[in-house]
Structures are given as structure tokens and as C-alpha cells.
């Protein structure tokens, strides 16, 4: 079976955004990820955004059961899964209902007409059939009997209607492969492997895939349907793979522990969207990783601290509600000065909030959310691939400074994938940990290292002669014994703060990601908004405005030189998927009039939203003024 595509003339596009949407049962995530793999192998740059239904399987056909997967691929460096899709695949009325509003006018719309039954239309809340009224006129509609055609393609395998229908996503994928000139072979291989024990299922799916592809080749599609080909992106040369954020974080933690020369312990309690961190690490036992599914988040973090006490890199991962539970224990790690990495894969809050939606609203909790003066290091990853490096950095700082480090990612980069140039592991800088081993005379557990870090020594239990006790009560700066002395407490509080603040001297000083120092407006971002901001600033700069982009990876302490950089601009705008948390932090720390731009919608910023807002702010070139958002 040949998987090569016929040599048709294809319209060349700089970039395409495709959205696959269907019922939870329609296999859209799978379709999306196969399309992604195939696209990555074509050398396109890409970004994806899976958009799950909330938590529980919803009844088939309802709007809240719609599962979506968006992919943006291009011939140039891209960073977001895109705003409005160019192509929408809607497998049923509910998928159409939910997603049509985002489809570009004139965009390509592929629907499975077989799913447009009366019942489904009603469940989706349609009064009349959109395929039959005028409402789809603005789009290039490709209405196909996908179910029927799939059934036909697989009859020979005698699967029964249900199983047969499950292949319709492959039919659709086959069609899309044809439309965008992707290679079917990897998907064929993957199907064979996945259904190795049920070869008839594999064959049926392959048959459906091919049928869809063939349909594309042979059907007389209406003239409005173009055939696209996106040329390869101009990515730096190297070996690439797809990686999502949680996978990258997991692997980064493993890399970090190896660079530190220590075993990795990961304690966690499942929670969306952090669970796959645990799942990823649980698969790495062959690399010596120990994972522990604890009875709750408190047990998870405490077990990690126990492991750190024993000389491992103790890590715990969770999402916002879990971090809330871990606060007391994190305080203990601060007081006892033990390394600890806490991964917070943020989701919509407050409370249970929107578990499957993304948000950046745990920044305050990360920096301030504990009793007492309890400083720690807070880092934020900007892209899925960046998670790998930030996880390494988290391990480095935790072990070097004997401190908890909170690594903030979010549902968006945790689930989103991007092509990732695989680093040469041997070129990563090691930071081996040296445990303190003596002498036992004069030894005190809170002895400070003489490396300027203010970090205390780390002694592994089992070391003869250095037996000692630690705990959460305040301890004397010198002996480490419990101390109720007033001046000592003052000094120790300052020392803990100073130690964490000192990290600023050990990380890159603040610098612009784009643009020149000084200008009209600086956009300061952090975390997963990186891609949208970068592109938005690019667009505005093309218009000749003096706009720049600075993306913070070090949230606490803030990097050196930040105040000076910010003060160089007339305006500072801080787009965040929260109610202005970083903006408030910057104002308080730097006394700079950073003005938030909030989107708290469980969804990433659209580039166009940012462009509009930047231009609005530039437009009224009035003197700086505090936004009403942050008045008291």
C-alpha cells in the first residue's frame, strides 16, 4: 500500500490552524495527535492545544461533551496553537455549535452529516438543521457522510456497527492527510502496534484511513475546497520530537536529578492537569525514579521532604488546590532548609474551579501562600519544551540553596505539544551535590556552606558522627538547637529571605525577549502566554511602534536589573490569565506602574486580542496612569 500522495498542485500557506472537534467518544484527541505527529515529521513548526470536556464523560451529543484538538503549523517559528482556525472538522452538531464561532469567515468546514440527526441537533440545542438553513453560508462547507463511508470501508472486517463507527475518526484523518499532504505511514505503523493483539481492528482502522485519503484524492470536491501544503518551517537543524509540557517537566526532573548526581523521588496525588506528571514518571522506574501515589497531597509533599532529608531530590507535583493543602509542609521545608521541588500545573480557580481549563492564578499562592515569613524560589516555564529546562533549573536551585522551589506551569503547556529539538544530554552542565561528611567536631546541622549561598550543609542520615535533629521550631543560627531568642529569630527570618533573594545573582539578569530597551510600551509576560505575546509584539512592531517583550522565568526572586528595564518604557503592560497577580507583584516590588491586562477565561490569549489591546494602549498616548484594576 502506497502512502505517497499524488502530485497535485497545492495552495501554499504560511500557516494553517486546524481544529478537530467531536463528541468525547469520537476520538478527536487521537486524531489530533496523529495529525500532529505527521505534521511534525513534515518539518513544520507547530503548536497544539487539546481542549477536553470537563472531567466526566458527558452524555453523547451534548455541547459539554465536545472534545477539541487544535493544531497550528507553519513554515516559520510559531508559538501558539493559533487563534481562529482556518479549518474546522465537526463530527456532530454539538461540535459545530461550540466551535463554529471561532472559525474564520471563509474557512473550511468539514462536517459529518450522518451525525446531524434530529436527536443530536436537539441535544446540541439547534432549533433547525444548520446544514439546511443559511447559517453556514460564510464558510466553505464540506458536508460528508463520514459514518456511512466509514462503514462501507470496513464492512469486510465484520466488526459490528459500533466498532465500525469507531473508525470514522481514521477516515477523517485520512482525508485531512490528503488535504495537507501528510504521510499516512506512521499512523499505519502506530495502528498496527496499538492493536497488535486485535489485528482485525488495526486493519479496519487502516482501511478507514485509506478510504478517507482516497476520497480526498478522487472525490470531486466542490471548487471552494483548496488543497493545502504548508512548506517546512525554517527550524534550526537537529533531531526533533514532539513533547508536551508535563512530559518535558518529568524528563527535566530526571535530568536535573542526574545532573545533581542524586536519586529522584516523586510523591504525588492525582489531580487534573498534573496527573500525567505522575504517569510519565511512573514509567521511568528503569531510570531509578521512585514514584509514590500518596493518600493525599499533604502526604505526597511530606514524603518528598522525607526523601530529601534522606538525600534524594524530593519532588511533588499537583495543581492549585493541592498546593493549598501543601502550604504547611512547604513551610517546614523552608524552616529546615531542605531541597524540594513543587510543580504546580495551574488550572482555573478558585476552589475546584475549572479543572480542565488553564489559568495562571496561583502566582500569589506560590510567592505568598504560607504562614509566617516563608520565602521560596518561584520559577515559571514558558512553553512545553521550556518545561524541561526549567525543571532542571528547579532542581539546581533547590539543591544548591537548600530551599523549596515552586515551578509553575499550567494546563495549557502541560497538555499542549510542540516540536522540540532534543538536547544533547552530555552537554547539560552538571551540578553535583556534595553532602557534608565531617568533621564531627564543631558540627552543627545549620552550619552554612562557605560558597556565598547562605545555604546550610546537607548531611545524609547514615553519616557517622554527624547525627543531628531538625524540625520546624526556630533554631539558633549557630548551633541549630531550638531557640526562642528574639534577636536570633529576627536574624534567621532575614537570613532565610536573603538566601532566597541571593538566587537573583545566580540566574540571568532581566533581559528583553524582543525589542530594544526603552520605548513606548513593554509587555511583561510569564508562563504559557509566551507564544501569544511574542507574536502579538512582533505584529505591532511591524507597524513601527517601539514595543518590546520581556518574559519572566524567575518570578521570585525577580531577576536583577528588572526595575531599570521597566522604568525605561512609557507603559508597562502585563497580560495574564488571572486578575493581575504579576502586575501587583511588580508594582509592590519595583514601584513601577505595571498595568495588568487580564483574561480569566480558562483559555489562552489570542494574538489578536493582545494586538488590539497593545494598540489601544499605544493609541491613547496619554501620560501613564494607574489602571482602575489595581486601585485599592
Amino acid at each position, binding site marked *: 500500500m502506497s502512502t505517497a500522495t499524488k502530485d497535485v498542485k497545492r495552495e501554499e500557506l504560511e500557516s494553517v490552524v486546524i481544529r478537530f472537534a467531536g463528541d468525547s467518544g469520537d476520538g478527536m484527541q487521537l486524531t489530533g495527535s496523529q495529525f500532529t*505527529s505527521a505534521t*511534525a*515529521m513534515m*518539518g513544520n513548526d507547530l503548536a497544539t492545544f487539546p481542549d477536553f470536556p470537563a472531567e466526566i464523560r458527558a452524555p453523547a451529543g451534548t455541547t459539554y461533551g465536545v472534545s477539541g484538538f487544535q493544531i497550528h503549523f507553519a513554515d516559520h517559528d510559531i508559538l501558539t496553537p493559533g487563534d481562529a482556525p482556518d479549518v474546522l472538522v465537526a463530527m456532530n452538531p454539538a461540535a459545530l455549535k461550540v466551535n463554529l464561532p471561532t472559525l474564520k469567515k471563509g474557512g473550511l468546514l468539514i462536517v459529518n452529516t450522518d451525525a446531524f440527526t434530529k436527536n443530536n441537533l436537539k441535544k446540541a440545542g439547534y432549533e433547525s438543521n444548520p446544514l439546511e438553513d443559511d447559517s453556514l453560508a460564510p464558510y466553505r462547507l464540506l458536508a460528508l457522510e463520514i459514518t456511512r463511508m466509514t462503514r462501507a470501508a470496513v464492512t469486510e472486517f465484520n466488526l459490528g456497527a459500533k466498532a465500525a463507527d469507531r473508525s470514522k475518526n481514521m477516515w477523517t484523518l485520512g482525508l485531512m492527510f490528503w488535504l495537507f499532504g501528510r504521510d499516512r505511514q*506512521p499512523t499505519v505503523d502506530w495502528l498496527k502496534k496499538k492493536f497488535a493483539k486485535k489485528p482485525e481492528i488495526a486493519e479496519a482502522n487502516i482501511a478507514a484511513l485509506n478510504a478517507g485519503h482516497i476520497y480526498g484524492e478522487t472525490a470531486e470536491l466542490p471548487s471552494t475546497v483548496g488543497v493545502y501544503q504548508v512548506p517546512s518551517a525554517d527550524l*534550526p*537543524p*537537529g*533531531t*526533533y*520530537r514532539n513533547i508536551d509540557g508535563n512530559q518535558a517537566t518529568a*524528563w527535566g526532573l*530526571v*535530568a536535573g536529578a542526574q545532573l545533581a548526581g542524586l*536519586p529522584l*523521588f516523586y*510523591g504525588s496525588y492525582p489531580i487534573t492537569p498534573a496527573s500525567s506528571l505522575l504517569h510519565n514518571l511512573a514509567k*521511568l*522506574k*528503569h*531510570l531509578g*525514579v*521512585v514514584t*509514590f501515589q*500518596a*493518600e*493525599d497531597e*499533604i*502526604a505526597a509533599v*511530606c*514524603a*518528598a*521532604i*522525607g*526523601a*530529601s*532529608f*534522606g*538525600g534524594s531530590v*524530593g519532588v511533588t507535583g499537583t495543581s492549585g488546590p493541592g498546593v493549598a493543602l501543601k502550604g504547611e*509542609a512547604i513551610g*517546614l521545608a523552608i524552616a*529546615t532548609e531542605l531541597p524540594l521541588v513543587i510543580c504546580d500545573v495551574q488550572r482555573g480557580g478558585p476552589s475546584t474551579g475549572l479543572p480542565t481549563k488553564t489559568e495562571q492564578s496561583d502566582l500569589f499562592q506560590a510567592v505568598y501562600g504560607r504562614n509566617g515569613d516563608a520565602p521560596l524560589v518561584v520559577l515559571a516555564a514558558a512553553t512545553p519544551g521550556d518545561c524541561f529546562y526549567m525543571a532542571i533549573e528547579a532542581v539546581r536551585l533547590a539543591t544548591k540553596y537548600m530551599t523549596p522551589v515552586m515551578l509553575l506551569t499550567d494546563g495549557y503547556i502541560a497538555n499542549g505539544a510542540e516540536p522540540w*529539538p*532534543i*538536547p*544533547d*544530554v*552530555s552537554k547539560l552542565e552538571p551540578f553535583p551535590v556534595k553532602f557534608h561528611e565531617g568533621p564531627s567536631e564543631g558540627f552543627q546541622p545549620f552550619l552554612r556552606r562557605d560558597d556565598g549561598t547562605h545555604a546550610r550543609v546537607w548531611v545524609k*542520615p*547514615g*553519616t*557517622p558522627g554527624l*547525627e*543531628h*535533629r531538625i*524540625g*520546624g*521550631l526556630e533554631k539558633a543560627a549557630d548551633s541549630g538547637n*531550638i531557640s526562642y531568642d528574639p534577636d536570633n529569630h529576627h536574624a534567621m527570618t532575614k537570613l532565610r529571605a536573603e538566601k532566597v533573594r541571593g538566587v537573583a545573582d545566580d540566574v540571568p539578569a532581566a533581559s528583553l525577549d524582543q525589542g530594544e530597551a526603552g520605548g513606548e510600551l513593554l509587555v511583561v509576560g510569564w508562563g504559557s502566554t509566551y507564544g501569544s505575546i511574542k507574536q502579538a509584539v512582533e505584529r505591532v512592531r511591524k507597524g513601527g511602534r517601539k514595543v518590546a517583550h520581556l518574559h519572566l522565568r524567575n518570578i521570585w526572586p525577580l531577576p536583577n536589573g528588572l526595575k531599570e528595564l521597566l522604568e525605561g518604557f512609557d507603559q508597562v503592560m502585563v497580560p495574564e490569565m488571572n486578575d493581575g497577580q504579576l502586575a501587583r507583584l511588580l508594582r509592590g516590588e519595583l514601584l513601577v506602574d505595571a498595568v495588568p491586562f487580564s483574561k480569566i477565561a480558562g483559555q489562552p490569549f489570542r494574538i489578536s486580542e493582545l494586538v488590539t489591546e497593545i494598540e489601544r494602549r499605544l493609541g491613547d498616548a496619554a501620560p501613564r496612569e494607574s489602571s482602575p484594576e489595581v486601585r485599592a
Partner: protein
Amino acid sequence: MTENPRKLTRKDFASDQEVRWCPGCGDYAILAAIQRTLPKLGATTENTVFVSGIGCSSRFPYYMNTYGFHTIHGRAPTFATGLKITRPELDVWVITGDGDGLSIGGNHLLHVLRRNVNLQIILFNNQIYGLTKGQYSPTSDVGQVSPSTPLGSIDQPVVPVRVALGANAKFVARGYDVSKKLPELLEQAHAFPGAALVEVLQNCPVFNDGVFDLITDRKKGPQHQLWVEHGKPMITADGKKGLRLDPKTMQLELVELGEGGVSEDELFVHDETNRSIAWMLSDLPEVKALGVLYREPDAPVYDDGVRAQVEMAQEKAGGSDLAALLRSGHTWEV
């Protein structure tokens, strides 16, 4: 470890910190028992770790010249779990109280027991919150007057060993602070591969003086003590009474022994591997069962299981490393 280990004594296990419990506190006796027991076990100071929560009892690690971690309230078993499964060669003891282990920390106790992590867990039960000055605890009797229950508590208490059995614990024992048999119990707990729970009845002379007098009193105590031993009939410590089972009603009754009473043959015989017997002993009306109530010798040990999986995975993977991991699955060249 050094080649020619010096024989350690009780004093080697005492730290230089002054002991800060109230005069007469039962904690002193338990501390002494443990300090006396460790040398017998061949323990070294460097490979022994005491992990505790918060409470009077949880100050314990400070007094041991070993490694120690005084953590936060109720969570000691979880720290100990993380430590033990990453450092199996260490000998890890958990010290907790009736509030620490059964109020805020009840769930962690349950899970560490069911998992069977190889730890010794010593629960100091004084039926009161000592450290916070005398509020009633989950083991306090109904009617306990305390600052938070001026009209007497209405919470029905839990029985620590029963909670442990409910959690499918594999080693459950009970003793009391000033008992001569306590070191022996500790030895057995230590010998058990898995989570060994030892409840120690402990007097708090300040806030709950004499709650256990009925059992621990030198004179009258023995008639209320039922030290159980595997394969032996159940007889009170004064030798005067024994336990007999009525299999129809499934009730245990305390019967007089000797002349005019019943003979030893009729008594219930302890089988420490039978969880139902342990259960029936857990909360007897007139006497307190002491000793090893339950022991399940061949139960899989959690930390062993963790290591076995890691080793198995490593063996299976052969030489796989991080670089290989990063290149696993689909990759492509640009």
C-alpha cells in the same frame, strides 16, 4: 559503618539536650526503654532515625543521639515513608501521640499501616492533648472534662489498636510506659519486617493523671492486665482470671481460675496470626490485653516492593539512559 564497631550502650543513644517533659511524665520511661533497647538490637546511632509529629511525645527525637526529624502535626508517617523507601538501609522509628496520630494524623497512620512500610511506630497514648494544655483527644473517655469540653466530651473514643486492625495493619501491640515488658515489645516490633504499631499507654500527670491507674498500678494493675502470648491461654497478670469464649454468642467472658473456677484448658488460646482474635482482644471490658495482639509474618513489605519494581525495570531496560529516553518514540531530523 566502622569495621570494628564499639559496643554501644544506652548512654550513646542519649543526646546532649536536656529532657523537657514535666516531672513524672510517662514519656521519660518510654525514652529510657527505647534508649535501653537500641543497643540490644545492634543499632548504630548513625543508621537510626526518629521521625515525629508535634506534641509532647513528639519532642522525643531531640533526646536521641541519632538522626531525627521533628516534623509537623500528624504527618510523621508520611515523612518516614518517603525516607524509608528511598533509604531502606536506615532503621526508621516513628513517634506519635494520640492526638498527632489519631486526630489530625489518623489517615496517614491508616495508610502507612495498610501499605506495610517497614517502620516501628510508637504511639504514646495519654488520652489527652498534652502540648496544647489539656484538651480531650480521640482516645479520651466520654465525659472527659477539658478546656474545650467544660461539660464533658460527647465524642466516643477510638481504640488505637482497633483502628490499626481496621487498617489491615500487620503488627499490632500494646504496652504501657512503666512496664518492664516494654523493651521486649519494642524488640519484637523492631524485628518485624513491615509497619509495626506499638500503642503505649502513657501517663500525663499534668492533664490526665492516673487515667491508666487501673491497669498500671503496681498493686491492683496485674488483675487488669492480660499479657497475651502466642499459643498460650489468656490469663491475667495476677494469675487469677482468664478469658473464655462462648462460640455461640461470640462473646469473651472473664472467668475465675483455680478451685471452684474453670481450668486453664478451657481458656481461649492466643493465636497472634489470627486477626479475628486480635480484634476480639482489642477492647475488652474489664481487662486490657497487652503484648503482641497480631502479627502477620509473611506480609509483603512496601519498601521492598518499591525497590523490586525499580530493579526489575532496570534489568528489563538494560542500559537505557536519559539520552535514550529523550529519543524514544517518533523523532525526525531538520
